[in-house]
């Protein structure tokens, strides 16, 4: 964003993407918030880790589309994304391992708390969080993989 020509263009009010930029800056936090809503509402209604993960990734992808792949990669480094994919799986599987240690079957959440229904609640939260992390990371990774294949569209091509 430190390109002097671009800064000048923007100061002169000739940025062709100004509407896009302003609107998406307004929308991106809302999309991320909606993702969290879908995530945590998944216990009581439609939703859950996968849908929330896709929505959260959509906010990052929108950022990348409007502000460029480079800016997106600076905000969400591909290296981190790779760890994210693993972390989610381990969160999910780790919940199962914890239930093993607590004496239950693999992924039997009832043993996670004194009360079985509370245990189910904690268990599904942990597992869905794992799904969220992995799905978000994988969606972004797929976008990066396709996005990195060709140069970005230059301003003249719009």
């Amino acid at each position, binding site marked *: 964003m430190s390109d002097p020509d671009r800064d000048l263009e923007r100061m002169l009010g000739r940025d062709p993407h100004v509407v896009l930029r302003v609107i998406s800056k307004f929308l991106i936090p809302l999309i991320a918030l909606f993702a969290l809503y879908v995530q945590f509402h998944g216990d009581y209604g439609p939703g859950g880790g996968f849908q929330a993960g896709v929505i959260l990734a959509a906010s990052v992808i929108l950022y990348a589309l409007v502000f460029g792949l480079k800016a997106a990669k600076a905000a969400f480094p591909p290296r981190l994304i*790779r*760890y994210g*994919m*693993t972390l989610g*799986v*381990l969160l999910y*599987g*780790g919940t*199962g*391992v914890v239930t*093993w240690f607590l004496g*239950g*079957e*693999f*992924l*039997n*959440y*009832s043993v996670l708390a004194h009360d079985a229904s509370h245990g189910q609640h904690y268990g599904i939260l942990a597992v869905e969080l794992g799904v969220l992390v992995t799905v978000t990371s994988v969606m972004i990774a797929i976008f990066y993989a396709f996005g990195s294949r060709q140069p970005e569209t230059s301003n003249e091509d719009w």
Partner: protein
Amino acid sequence: MPVMFSVLELMPDWLLTHGPAFLMALPLLMAAIMAVLPNKRVAWFTTFIVTSILTITAFALALYNAKVGTTIYKMGGWAPPHGISLVIDALNAPVLVLIALMSLITVVYAMPATVAEIKPNKRAPFYAAFLLCVAGLLGMVITGDAFNVFVFLEVSSISTYVLVAMGAARDRRALSAAYNYLILGSIGATFFVIGIGFLYMETGTLNMADMARILADLDGGSRVAKVAFAFIVIGLGLKLAMFPLHTWLPGAYAYAPTPVTVFLASTATKAALYLLLRFTFFVFDPSYAYVADGLLYILVGMGVIGMVFASLQAIFQTDARRMLAFSSVAQVGYMLLGIGIATTASVAAGYLHLINHAIIKGGLFIALGAMWYRFGITRTEDFQGLGKTMPLTMGAFTVLGLSLIGVPFTAGFVSKVNLASAAADAGWWWAVGIIMLTSILALVYIGRVLLLAYFQSPPQVNGETVIRNEAPIMMLIPMWVCALASVFIGVKSDAVVGASIRAAELLLGAG
């Protein structure tokens, strides 16, 4: 067997109760850790430890199953038919041991092989994909839930496409082979899941035992169940390389990294065959007219055509790995023939051949990999003089090759004799003839290579005769384990034959 049961005393109780989930969770989680593990040497060592533990667990569970009978593990504490169950019975316990054991053998062989074939920065991801594939195969064999089967089928298939494509470092044709496999494999998986969908529509359940019960109540079900059966057979047929659907297999086997070929040849098609057995005899039943027709006209028909045509194709291959790949298609034909005759003896023979062929082909591909490792050999005509330059490798190849043909005192003989006698008992004398004919064809394609290896002198390179250059010890060990196992089964076949008869009795009832 009572002596063997004392091994169970050494196993912790926890492993015997939670073993089924452990068997698929361990490789799955370790694969995730491996994917971010930067160190390639640690990657091999971890994979080795994991597959060793898997082998021990699978073996213990198989013994436990022989002792106490079918066990059902309730995943997440939810009882079937609503929850996902993991079932270990006489049918899948031997396949689990086979997959775990072949993964261990492959990992031992992979230590030198990956150094030669996989770029250093790709080795940790290679092992991660390998473990994922192992997890998928174990999962699809162990689960008692039909949709779960599809999920694990995809886990194993997708990691397999990646593994095959990794052969591109050695031969760029691996990419097109992997793409071909990806398209056909996905079509197979789609057909399979459509079949599961129709079955769900018909029965309203996904638990396989429950499906079987409801289908029996419905006396085979309506047209929906027939369509489901057709989709499932075609989908699995693609996965197990049933004759006209086998076109992905030679390319994938020939251009994948050699450890991947070893593992694929000995487990991937076998797990799909296990599923075919599970669906045709356990979920469906050969007493339904459409299943009986499917067995008779599709499985036997395609199996026999495959036996003859793929064997003929194997004879005319110039690439050694393609030759063995076509031979695999032919051998799948034997198993389909055994399944299609649908008597207890014939299904047992087909099942026996499934196990024997996995060991034989695994060993043969390890030997071919060792030849490539030392001399870069891929074509059959390059075998000349290998009896002198690589005597131990060629020795193992010879033993396993004879086993593939079906020479007495080898595993191949035991399963072919059982299959032929089962066919004769059922009055299928023409099938006995076909078995003999294709054994002769196997003699031609294996013998052609053996002749070159033993009766030609080593080639001249830069005016000097190539000297002896034996494969490294880490390749010789797994190769000879397979060779000796095939001889052992040939000489003392009680245990394996007993296991296959128990499996067949589970499916068809005794007698």
